[in-house]
């Protein structure tokens, strides 16, 4: 290639990729760097300039029980959502795997929560979980018991958020399990049947072991997604009934930055969050590669 045509090639590259590169620089790379700087300052967003305070924000976070509480809540939330959604999704996938009337419709319906606007769904769940209104009132009425008011109880409010998270996650997990089940060689089940293995034994000793890569992959990606939970907290509990009973990490970040106007502290929370999610995503990508090799 001549020098002239090579210059032309490079120029075309810049014309094609340039606009997006500027956007990534401005709205992704710059914010990461600026966050790191802001995390070392004290700033209420109004004063003319941030005041440099060194690692004080990180020290404050480490000694503030609220930080630990929201981090704990978020981990409990993520683990509960991932585990409950996977169990239900696995059952659903096993039921949907073989031909059954209405299979496509069932699959479509199970996936619908995943695409539904979380803010709207969370509002509906406030009603659904109310012990005096909604379907629970009927069930409690039939049983003749006074049901718990989840959203007004400390632990209950976190449970309510978990229910919504799990509800949204089941559909996507089902899709992945179904795809995984399709890759299992049928002859394995056939020979197991000949050996006299029942359907439970086959699930336990053939299906589940062969699905472990899918389970690990979903656990990791579901966990990362769960760490980002915000809307359901905002719409359902605002972190209450007594803050931070049901607050999550991202809600706490939002509150610190945009309600308490502590930009430096919020940036320190953001930097730690960034580090954690990047590490987990790197692990996920490594694992995805392993998974592809498995087959």
């Amino acid at each position, binding site marked *: 290639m001549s020098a002239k045509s090579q210059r032309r090639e490079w120029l*075309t590259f810049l014309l094609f990729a340039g606009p997006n590169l500027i956007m990534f620089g401005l709205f992704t790379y710059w914010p990461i760097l600026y966050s790191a700087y802001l995390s070392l300052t004290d700033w209420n967003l109004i004063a003319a300039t941030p005041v440099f305070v060194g690692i004080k924000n990180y020290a404050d976070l480490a000694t503030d029980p609220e930080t630990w509480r929201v981090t704990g809540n978020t981990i409990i939330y993520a683990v509960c959502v991932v585990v409950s959604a996977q169990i239900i999704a696995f059952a659903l996938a096993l039921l949907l795997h073989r031909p059954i009337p209405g299979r496509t419709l069932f699959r479509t319906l199970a996936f619908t929560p995943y695409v539904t*606007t979380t*803010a709207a769904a969370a509002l509906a769940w406030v009603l659904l979980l109310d012990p005096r209104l909604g379907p629970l009132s009927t069930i409690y009425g039939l049983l003749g018991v006074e049901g718990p008011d989840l959203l007004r109880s400390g632990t209950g409010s976190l449970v309510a958020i978990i229910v919504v998270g799990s509800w949204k996650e089941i559909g996507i997990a089902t899709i992945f399990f179904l795809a995984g089940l399709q890759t299992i060689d049928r002859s394995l089940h056939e020979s197991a049947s000949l050996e006299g293995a029942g359907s439970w034994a086959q699930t336990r000793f053939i299906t589940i072991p062969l699905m472990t890569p899918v389970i690990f992959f979903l656990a990791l990606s579901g966990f990362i997604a769960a760490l980002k939970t915000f809307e359901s907290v905002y719409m359902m509990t605002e972190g209450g009934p007594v803050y931070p009973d049901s607050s999550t990490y991202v809600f706490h970040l939002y509150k610190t930055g945009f309600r308490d106007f502590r930009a430096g502290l919020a940036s320190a929370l953001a930097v730690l969050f960034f580090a954690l999610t990047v590490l987990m995503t790197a692990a996920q990508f490594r694992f995805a590669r392993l998974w592809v090799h498995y087959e």
Partner: protein
Amino acid sequence: MNQHRFIRLAGLLLIVSVLTLPFYWMVVTALQPPGALVTGAHAWWPSEMHWANFSDAWNAAPFGQFFVNSAATGVAATTIQVLGAILMAYAFAVIQFPAKSVIVIAVIATMAVPEEAKLVPNFLLMRDFEWIDSYWALIVPPAAHAFPVFVLYQWFRTIPTSMRDAARADGAGHWRTLWLIYVPMSRPAIAAVVVIAFLGRWNDFLWPLIVTNTAEMRTLPIGLAYLRGLEETGNQWPVLMAGSLLVILPVLLLYAVAQRQFVEGITRGAIKG
């Protein structure tokens, strides 16, 4: 055998009924007359079909404006995001540039950066640009997204180079090769990326929450929170559920029409490492 099948069907019905109960409940509640005692057996079916809740929700908050905001900024951001991604993915897959692989990795790696971690600086950027409470803030920053670049880059790399060479022999440059060969051959991937981008914009909550502050600029999900905060509608469940349905109906319609693209786009983004 038949008994087995019956048990499976019963299990499916049970799980799927629970999963779809919230939708049923939204519809039933949205049709209840205002102030009805929505409790016990009364709650399962409306005592009369009270369609006025939808117009009440529409009128209590500037829902028409929310709709326009969500639709306009959603379409604009999706267009910019996908056009930018098509150009960038082509440059990455086809055009030569020094140290290209470093640039490719630097862009794809941003998929791991959570939006939540960039909130404060991007808000400050919007303030410096004087874009707070404007369409610019809702359209431009979300348009820089690595996911569609990643999906289209993967797809473009599977297109055989012989296609490109043939186009070049006919005298086509990169611009024409992209639009006459690469884009037409990538329709499924582009459709998936468009659907996912629009869904992401429509459902987004945190970003529009912090960069808009007047009712005129709010998008639908934030508008719903606004409807709930209003004194006259805040505890009117029929009106709130009618409002919720107005927010999710467009998404559900899009999902019904483009289900394959949704599933394709979401799973594609999640797997390939």
